[in-house]
């Protein structure tokens, strides 16, 4: 039973990715002159990596230095070994040693560059990185460092900290391909790599894709047919326009924002009591549905309470910064937790809006990025000034202050979007931000520990990103202004990168959570900057930028991939095809609800409790009681709300959603995993929600078609947005017939199977046929294609 060895596979992976990285990225910033290429053999394997002719600091050198050297020779000034820091040119060229007589790097001079000796030496006591660090340099990495020093060891500021400038759009053209500037940037990179764009996706596929990406729901059979038969050149654009106006769009955008804002319906620690933050979620949906400009959307959330004459809507939006976990565990030291809350806000700010890992500078200076511990706590101090408690006395139902109270008055005023009528409550308390008059002093906390304050600090932003303008108020409102300052290098890039991620699975910077030195490099840096500037100049208009991306030919390519391309660019960094993506946890369930006709499209209001295996909450709950001790399944149409509205108990999140990589909502998450596991198969096969949807899907098919083949085709098309081909139809037909026979022979308990889930199929249906067709639908809902958008 030969299985490829681990070792070989890792080598293959290296092969898979490196040529692309070096080949593809090098050419993006430096001109690619043809010349003799150095090749290096890896690990006695025949694998070879091409070393570029011109070494670029940002794309070739810094990833190596950062990952393997910065820990001891980087931005953390308290960790620097031997007086050498390699993150700046000055630090790297400095004279070292007692006698100041040697240098790690002497540009252009290999012999005098001690770094070269140290990385090639066979003396373990001298070798860098030292063996005990468990870090090693690969042969080709050493070659790159060597060549870089030979070529002058030129340093460049980290790309993400230089404000984007409007790049020149490549003039390259290809006949019959390309709709807007995106395509020119992409095509230029493809041509450099000897590749061409893929053919256009079929109309069905394209429609399915744009429906899912913009609304999180599939098109109906009717919508597919209408689109396929519409030969107007404007048909596609019209679809985009209409999708962007739907409530579904607003909800789908909000679903992503829930991860970023770590939204939950419970407090998150210990007994994990319920909290009421859904009116804030209603506001997010409202903001997306009226296409609130991104700068305003973010400013309201960061500092709505500090806006002049702040109204209830602006205050409600600041709930963003109260969505973090809050403890109710009796006996905690309140200040320890209050510090955690402030930290969470600062770290969320860094991840969500700057794409930086501020948490890494809590205990010491950042090891990789130019963020000192002092700067960490300066950012922290912006969020340290609300009148809150680390531990609110009492148990379930107590609202940690500060909070606002929404009454009928607000509901009839600016908060008309809050779905108060869905509750019995006359007054709804929602946690919000509220700045204190007397500033709470902030300090650097030694090792990040709450009870070890050292030097006092004041609100400020990291120098290396953008100094804080002195005319801005030193509070959250000033911070929001700083974020949207035209010279801020990160805000627009981070935002458009996330939009790209929504439409392509990966951002142009794959690590959408980290734009720092350890993050991924942009695959198309100029395109990223082009989009960032466009987004800002066009008024931070989210709908407009999404439409612009959707209109590109790049987006509209087919996902089909040849073996060669798959091997050459497994990560699809060059975009010679559209990505095939698994649907998210929410969308998988929502699709089943939609196509079966079960979906309840009410918007907003309190969260609901759809099917969940019994006993999960009860098995872990403690003595705290409260509404989160026992799971009480919703009834009636509340069972079929969109998954955005599924009650989120943080310590025991809904298992079917977690199985499909939903974020836990413990911390701000800007990118989910996309995994493929046996537990996913079990959910799709056995979750009553899917089985109930299969039955309803079968019933609908029987309502609209008489012929069994038509019924099967209908179901298949609802689930995959295309007609089955002859072979597929044949397979499904056979399956149906076999199921029908088994149902008739009592090999299948039709009554039992048809009784799963609350929704009863009424009317004159042959139980046998309904069961056989439901089983067929059940199979179809399990297809990889059904849970993917291609």
């Amino acid at each position, binding site marked *: *039973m*030969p299985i*490829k*060895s*681990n*070792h070989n*596979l*890792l080598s293959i*992976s290296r092969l898979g*990715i490196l040529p692309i990285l070096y080949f593809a990225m090098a050419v993006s910033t430096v001109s690619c002159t043809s010349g003799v290429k150095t090749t290096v053999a890896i690990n006695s394997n025949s694998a070879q990596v091409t070393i570029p002719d011109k070494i670029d600091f940002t794309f070739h050198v810094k990833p190596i230095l950062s990952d393997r050297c910065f820990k001891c020779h980087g931005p953390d000034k308290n960790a620097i070994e031997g007086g050498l820091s390699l993150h700046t040119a000055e630090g790297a060229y400095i004279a070292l040693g007692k006698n100041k007589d040697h240098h790690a790097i002497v540009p252009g001079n290999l012999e005098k560059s001690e770094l070269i000796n140290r990385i090639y030496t066979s003396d373990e006591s001298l070798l860098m990185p030292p063996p005990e660090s*468990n870090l090693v340099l690969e042969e080709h990495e050493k070659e790159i460092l060597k060549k870089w020093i030979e070529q002058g060891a030129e340093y460049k500021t980290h790309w993400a900290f230089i404000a984007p400038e409007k790049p020149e759009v490549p003039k390259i053209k290809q006949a019959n391909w390309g709709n807007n500037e995106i395509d020119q940037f992409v095509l230029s990179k493809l041509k450099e790599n000897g590749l061409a764009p893929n053919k256009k996706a079929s109309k069905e596929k394209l429609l399915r894709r744009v429906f899912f990406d913009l609304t999180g729901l599939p098109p109906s059979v009717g919508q597919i047919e209408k689109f396929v038969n519409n030969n107007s050149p404007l048909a596609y654009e019209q679809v985009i326009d209409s999708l962007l106006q739907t409530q579904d769009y607003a909800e789908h955008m909000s679903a992503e924002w829930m991860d970023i804002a770590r939204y939950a319906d419970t407090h998150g620690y210990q*007994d*994990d009591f319920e909290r009421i933050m859904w009116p804030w979620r209603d506001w997010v949906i409202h903001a997306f549905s009226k296409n609130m400009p991104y700068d305003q959307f973010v400013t309201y959330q960061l500092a709505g309470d500090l806006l002049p004459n702040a109204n209830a809507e602006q205050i409600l939006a600041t709930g963003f910064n109260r969505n973090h*976990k809050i403890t109710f*565990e009796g006996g*905690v*030291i*309140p200040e320890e937790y209050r510090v*955690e809350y402030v930290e969470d806000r600062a770290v969320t700010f860094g991840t969500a809006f700057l794409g930086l*890992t501020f948490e890494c500078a809590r205990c010491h200076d950042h*090891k990789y990025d130019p963020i000192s511990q002092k700067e960490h706590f300066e950012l922290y101090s912006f969020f340290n000034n609300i009148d809150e408690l680390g531990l609110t006395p009492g148990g379930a139902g107590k609202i940690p202050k500060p909070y606002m109270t929404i009454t009928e008055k607000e509901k009839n005023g600016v908060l008309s979007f809050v779905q108060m009528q869905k509750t019995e409550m006359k007054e709804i308390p929602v946690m919000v931000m509220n700045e204190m008059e007397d500033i709470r002093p902030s300090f650097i906390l030694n090792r990040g520990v709450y009870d070890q304050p050292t030097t006092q600090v004041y609100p400020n932003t990291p120098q290396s990103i953008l100094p804080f303008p002195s005319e801005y108020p030193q509070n959250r409102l000033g911070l929001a202004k700083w974020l949207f300052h035209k010279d801020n290098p990160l805000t627009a890039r981070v935002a458009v990168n996330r939009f790209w991620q929504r439409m392509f699975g990966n951002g142009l910077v794959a690590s959408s959570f*980290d734009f720092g*030195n*350890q993050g991924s490099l942009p695959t198309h840096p100029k395109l990223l900057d082009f989009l960032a500037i466009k987004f800002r100049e066009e008024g931070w208009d989210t709908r407009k930028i999404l439409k612009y991306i959707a209109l590109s030919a790049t987006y509209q390519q087919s*996902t089909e*991939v040849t073996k060669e391309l*798959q091997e050459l660019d497994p*990560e699809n960094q060059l975009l010679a095809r559209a990505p095939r993506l698994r649907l998210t946890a929410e969308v998988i369930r929502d699709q089943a609800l939609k196509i079966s006709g079960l979906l309840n499209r009410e918007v907003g209001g309190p969260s609901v409790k759809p099917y969940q295996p019994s006993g*999960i909450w009860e098995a*872990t709950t*403690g*003595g705290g009681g409260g509404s989160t001790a026992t799971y009480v399944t919703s009834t009636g149409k509340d069972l079929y709300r969109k998954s955005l509205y599924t009650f989120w108990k943080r*310590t025991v999140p809904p298992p079917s959603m*977690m199985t499909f990589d939903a974020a*836990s909502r413990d911390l701000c998450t800007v*990118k989910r*995993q*996309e*995994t*493929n*596991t*046996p*537990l996913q*198969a*079990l959910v799709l*096969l*056995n979750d009553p929600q899917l089985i109930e949807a299969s039955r309803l899907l079968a019933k609908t098919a029987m309502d609209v078609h008489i012929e069994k083949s038509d019924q099967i085709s209908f179901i298949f098309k609802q689930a995959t947005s295309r007609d089955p081909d002859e*072979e597929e139809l044949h397979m499904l037909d056979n399956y149906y017939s076999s*199921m029908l026979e088994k149902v008739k022979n009592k090999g*299948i*308990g039709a009554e*039992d*199977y*048809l*009784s*799963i889930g609350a929704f009863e199929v009424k009317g004159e249906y042959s139980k046998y046929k309904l069961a056989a067709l439901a*089983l067929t639908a059940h*199979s179809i809902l399990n*297809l990889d*294609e059904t849970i993917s958008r291609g």
Partner: protein
Amino acid sequence: MSEKKIIEERSLILNRRSFLGKTALGVGGVALASLLGANLFRKDENGILTKDDSLNGVKGILNSLHHPAKVKRVIYLFQSGGPSQLELFDHKPLLNKRRGEDLPESIRNGQRLTGMTAGQDKFPLVGSLYKFNKHGKNGTEISELLPYTAKMVDDLCIIKSMYTEAINHDPAVTFFQTGSQQPGRPSIGSWLSYGLGSENENLPAFTVLLSRGTGRPNGQPLYTRLWGNGFLHSLHQGVQFRAAKDPVLYLNDPKGITKEVKREMLDNIAALNDKHYQDNGDPEIKSRIAQYEMAYRMQTSVPNVMDTAKEPDYIYEMYGPEAKIPGTYAANCLLARRLAEQDVRFIQLYHMGWDQHDNLPGAIAKQAKDVDQASAALVADLKQRGLLEDTLVIWGGEFGRTNYSQGLLTDTNYGRDHHPRSFTMWMAGGGIKPGMVYGETDDFGYNIVKDPVHVHDFQATMLHLLGIDHEKLTYKYQGRRFRLTDVEGHIVKDILT
């Protein structure tokens, strides 16, 4: 599907997403490891466990062990809530002698207290109401509350000098299980699944069993993130085995559907998926097919391992009468042995209810009775099957309890608050010195005076026994290489054979 076909499928699913980090978080390495593993370990001619490359299989991220392993699996009997070391293992007669006297400040020495006792005017010392007797070859003192454990004492290594940093349950349990007090990191079992893979292709590498104590039935809650995969691939998450109708969530076939019908459905799905793969070429589709096969195998393997009906009477006598009641600690201990036999890598039990702030004497007696017989039986049972030599069994909670009474101290009643500064755990099994007592606390049972063992030291030692250097099993996430022991951890060499 034939065995050969399954293996072919598996080698096919070694695709870009698994190996190149197609997933959001850059799952590098062998993400599907826990599914694919055959034996990572084998015994060489000297009986030493080494990595087995003979099958040439794809397993955990580690190409080879960092050093020879002593054990290949772990059973962790987590006593949730913080058992009182003073009533169970750490005998302090001084506390009985000075009963009611205030804890001297020289002993407390600025230790931070929880909000529950920080406001008390006095901290009256209180000794155990339960007697201690000497047991085993070395005359180790064990409380009368643990008669069965006492009989096994020559097989145990009792560490009396554990300490932690957290003083409350949520952060303290999270710290033990993930190396960090704040949620978000992978738990121990996930690290092992990631590093070592699985030895059983039909069961998850990391399984979890929960039970409730009688000492404080509405005790401290648990959180599913305690067996979460954090930033590792979700294949490495702990899978809860339940005493419920569905022993694993969503495991059971729907009503009305037989195994044969399910098989036919799977074949139909696989055929259609395969057809689509031929048309589209995305290797992820192949992986999906393989995952469905694994799910199918789990539908047989999980109920098989959970079905204890055929265990002989003498086994039930060993584990005690509760072993016949599904969902009890005793039943879970028996299941733990069965999972160990199936080479499940990390078997995590949680027994809730040790949080005895008040009415401690009554509550701890019940709680100890819940676990004593079955814990001891598990060690004995593993031993008689020759499994103890390559299994590590761990018994312990997230912290200890104070030497002074929380609330009113009466002749027959008292409580104890959380105490992070010293507490007791025991370990048994391969590589661990049997019959040993390690570490010492002062006469007040408050501070450690000899051989302190930090949580990270405990974690480092556990990994060491599995052949892993705790500094080398890392995962790069958001630019940083994370590991179970964060940036600390020393192997406790003195307790190793």
